[in-house]
């Protein structure tokens, strides 16, 4: 089995804002486009125009309905890709050393030339974040766009994962979560960022920002309406209203 590095210099990862993600799938397809054309084998699609289309994606958006104890049900969009865990079970389970975690930045990658397609890593990942490419027979996963983030052929502003660059609502953020002063670490601190399934003990690097409290303007019938003074009537009928109007206009 394969060892993790004892320490990584950075902890590069994503911060995903569940309060802002509208579930548009822009990140899913941008990722598919970039990673089909770049790192390793293309992300293939089987039966792409047929009865059961099934392709390789490194990032998918799931939607969950949540029913709070009181009030209306809510819909949460939940993008999910590799979380680049510090204790990545997908690496330690790999029989060939193809799965590895980079010392420099903590990115978890698959060296496709060493991958025998056994699929153990996908079984070991508690998040279901790895997908076997059916055409190539190798394991595919989020690379955090390792071929973009340092790429000197790209303008500096574009050296970020394609999902982050494309996200229309700015729900995805990229940076070093090992540096408490980074923008992403500050965002996590400010918004109460969370580990996904911490009980699994994988110490995920990616963080999720929880949705803010919803439906604050929907109150129980017996609750006191603090906004009520805003609607205190100036008059109850046209005549009274017009006299209020005349008086008010005088003051303008």
């Amino acid at each position, binding site marked *: 089995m*394969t*060892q993790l590095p004892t320490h990584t210099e950075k902890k590069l990862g994503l911060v995903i804002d569940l*309060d802002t993600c509208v579930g*548009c*799938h*822009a990140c899913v*397809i*941008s990722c*598919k*486009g970039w990673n*089909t*054309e770049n790192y390793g084998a293309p992300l*293939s699609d*089987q*039966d*792409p*125009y*047929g*009865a059961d*289309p*099934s*392709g390789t994606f490194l990032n998918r958006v799931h939607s969950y309905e949540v029913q709070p104890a009181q009030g*209306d*049900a*809510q*819909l949460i*969009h939940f993008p999910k890709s590799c979380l680049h865990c510090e204790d990545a079970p997908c690496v330690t389970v790999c029989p060939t050393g193809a799965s*590895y*975690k*980079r010392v420099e930045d903590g990115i978890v*990658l698959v*060296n496709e030339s060493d991958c025998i397609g056994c699929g153990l890593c996908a079984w070991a990942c508690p998040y279901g974040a790895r997908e076997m490419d059916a*055409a*190539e027979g190798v394991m595919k996963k989020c690379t955090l766009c390792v071929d973009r983030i*340092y790429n000197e*052929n790209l303008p500096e502003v574009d050296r970020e994962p394609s999902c982050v*660059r*494309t*996200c*229309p609502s700015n729900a995805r953020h990229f940076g070093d979560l090992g540096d408490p002063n980074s923008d992403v670490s500050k965002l996590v601190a400010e918004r109460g960022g969370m580990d996904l399934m911490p009980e699994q003990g994988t110490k995920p690097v990616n963080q999720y920002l929880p949705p803010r409290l*919803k*439906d604050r*303007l*929907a*109150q129980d*019938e017996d609750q006191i309406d603090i*906004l009520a003074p*805003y*609607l*205190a*009537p*100036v*008059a109850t009928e*046209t005549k009274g*209203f*017009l006299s209020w*109007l005349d008086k*008010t*206009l005088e003051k*303008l």
Partner: protein
Amino acid sequence: MTHIQPTLDLSPKVSDEVRKTTCYMCACRCGINVHMKKDPLGDLKVAYIEGNRDHPVNKGVLCAKGSAGIMQHNAPSRLKSPMKRVGERGEGKFEDISWEEAYSIAESWLRPIRETNPEKLAFFTGRDQSQSFTSLWAQSFGTPNYAAHGGFCSVNMAAAGIYTMGGAFWEFGQPDWDHTKLFMLFGVAEDHDSNPIKMGIGKIKKRGARIIGVNPIRTGYNAVADDWVGITPGTDGLFILSMIHCLMKAGKIDLHYLAQYTDAAVLINGDEKSPEFGLKLRDDNGKELVIDRNTGKPAPFDKKGVKPDLAATMRVAGVTHRPVFHQMADMYLDEQYAPEAVADRCGISAKRIRTLAAELARVAFDEAFELEHEWTDFRGEHHTSMTGRPVSFHAMRGISAHANGFQTCRALHTLQIILGTVEVPGGFRFKPPYPKPATAHPKPHCKVTPNAPLDGPHLGFVHGPDDLALKEDGSPARIDKAFTWENPMSSHGLMHMVISNAYAGDPYKIDTLFMYMANMSWNSSMNTTGVQDMLTDKDESGEYVIPRIIYSDAYSSEMVAYADLILPDTTYLERHDCISLLDRPICEADAVADAIRWPVVEPDRNVKGFQSALCDLGARLGLPAFTNVDGSQKYADYADYIVNHERRPGVGPLAGWRMGENGLQGGRGSPNESQLDNYIENGGFFVEHIPDGANYYKPWNADYQDWAVKMGLYDSPQPYLFSLYSEPMRKFQLAAEGHGERQPPDHLRARIKEKMSPLPIWYETDQQGNEGFTVTALTQRPMAMYHSWGSQNAWLRQLHGCNPMYLPSNLMREHDLSDGDWAEITSPHGAITVPVMEMAALNANTIWTWNAIGKRKGAWALDEKAPEATKGFLLNHLIHELLPPKGDGLRWANSDPITGQAAWFDLKVAIKKVAAPADAQSQPNMPPINSPVGKGPSELKWKVGQ
């Protein structure tokens, strides 16, 4: 195994070349960087598409549709050649022909029509992004029968906006994302201005501003809204008028704004005996009159220094003329709009309506602020700052696709205006060429002369009965009956009625139906099965009732099978286009902008951009706009037209890099032969910013007005008042009351009197025939799909490959349904049998499904077993283009009686649990059509570069 890691190339080559053009995956029209790589043969191929960071619309971001453009461009469903039908209509059997043969067939059909009666051609376009061009072609041909698809899309929103405030939502305006603190959106489909709205939501959330979503369904934008109001469909107008009631009653209205910038102070003729009763009083120059608070005397609204009085009345010869605002007080203070009176119908508690109205008031007035921009208004008054009211609104099809949609949209604009939030910092802002009042737009034209152009543009804005498109005998001039008493203010036409009316010969028969990018035999028609029958039915002589159909599309859509002649269009990466200020531009509230598409790759099939084909065909037919004086072809192709056409002297399709006296300039100027190269060099677009101080209060801001004239948006300054009171509507009412020469038919008098209220009202839509059908049924668009196009895209169809009918939890229980069960959904018109799924975040009396996922077997190069074709379905089968017969022998359109907007969302249904169909397929299950392009491959391993 100890830790080892390979050495990676961290700076691989990204591409061989980046070509910048404009996306075509929806009406958003983002800038894209198309990364090209050499394939093994050394040819440059499209490898990867990303957003263009410099582009004014998307600033680098791109949605799923845009990023999947490579799969659209390479879709196996692309048409390959001109074709003529060889089987029966609807079979999909075609023979490839040359362009020469295609043109000569088209010419042989169209020339005799033009020489004898041009109205026999009906030319309608669907997802057309070149309407200023296609309308010019139709006008030059001489037919009155032209429109694009606005009539079945969201004309209520466009027309209500322009009639009320000289600009609309759609992509023609935007919230002031930098300053707004409360953003309220109603019924927004996620395909107009979609990336800017998503960017805006991200931006305002980052600042801690809040969003209220009003929509029966809590998905997409509504899912991230801070507050969700799950309103009952069709009652938005009532909810809005109730909030107006609360705000007026509490005096939480912007009196200064109402007095200065709107017609609230304009005097209305109060003489019940006058033929001008209810019209605005005007001076000898036609200027609306107000009482000036300085003098107490009447004065034209725009007189220097005038202070319009909202309260004062004028008494002349025993008659009292009152200002608009008095009538608003009469109307909206009435208890019929009290929250308690509307709560049940809207499905929103009275308390919540009050809370929402109070929150609007709190933010608009307590959080008001000043922007330090000096400006001068149209009355010459100088202001040292601009007052901001940080409440903004946006709305689209959800509130407009109802038969009460026009008045609902007007009500929403009234709410915006009484809060003083339009064109102010923090509020809703217009994008150039808006603001532009309805009176500055053309009126509709319909005068037909054989062998000659129409007498003017087809579409426009009517201002009273005199502007209707009627023939001498009073019958409709247009095949879709736009601009008639049935729907007088139908500014976008009624595309959804064209086939139905042509088939019925009502108001007359046509000879050739010519359509572009409009899937009328499938998801773009109400009553899909009926429309298929109309397209294939023959008369006693064995001829098709609609004799000839020409269709242009890039893809093997369902409509292809129903045409006689196919003109294959290119993909968006193979064509020239202009995103023009003459059309639906891509401006920002702070800037004027336009853009192009250009062939980043040449087509590898025998196809041609449709607009270029129209240049050829127009010249063959000798249309004046497409022919030189010597009879030769005027525009070699669409690119030639884009560069050289001038709509008015100095104003052409593109505003960038025009030739001025001192070289190239933006705005006005003569044609520049290198214009397209200038655009390509600049990343495919042109942008010029509005000067600071001119960029708010635009309808009344002298600096903006002057800038707009300079840019060629207007020919002279056009300051105006917002129309809370719609005089054109009052004129139609007057006609219905018996005034004037042009009189409505008697069966429409009562309806016109009631529905054409010059102040917004709410009314229940026609419920005849709906007994027993109590549940509202809607469709929504997935953000990752555009109309029917997404399903041919190998990547996107993996996101949205099926469309269950979503039912709220209470209806699932009531009908003993579980996820995956089947239900028969019936309406007064038809029945479908479909799989169901539970959704809790949904109005309790509403069911819905994704729009246009269901596909006809054989279309779009999909396998006949594709889930879109087996389980997928259309709600369209339940919706008729006509209302149920009333027994009077008349055909009543299922449309808004004011604008003719297709009332898709008025649908009421009943639900019944049924056993799964024997074939486990959604019903109706139509037989396959033959695919003229074959089927797609069984595997994709896409990689252009090595």
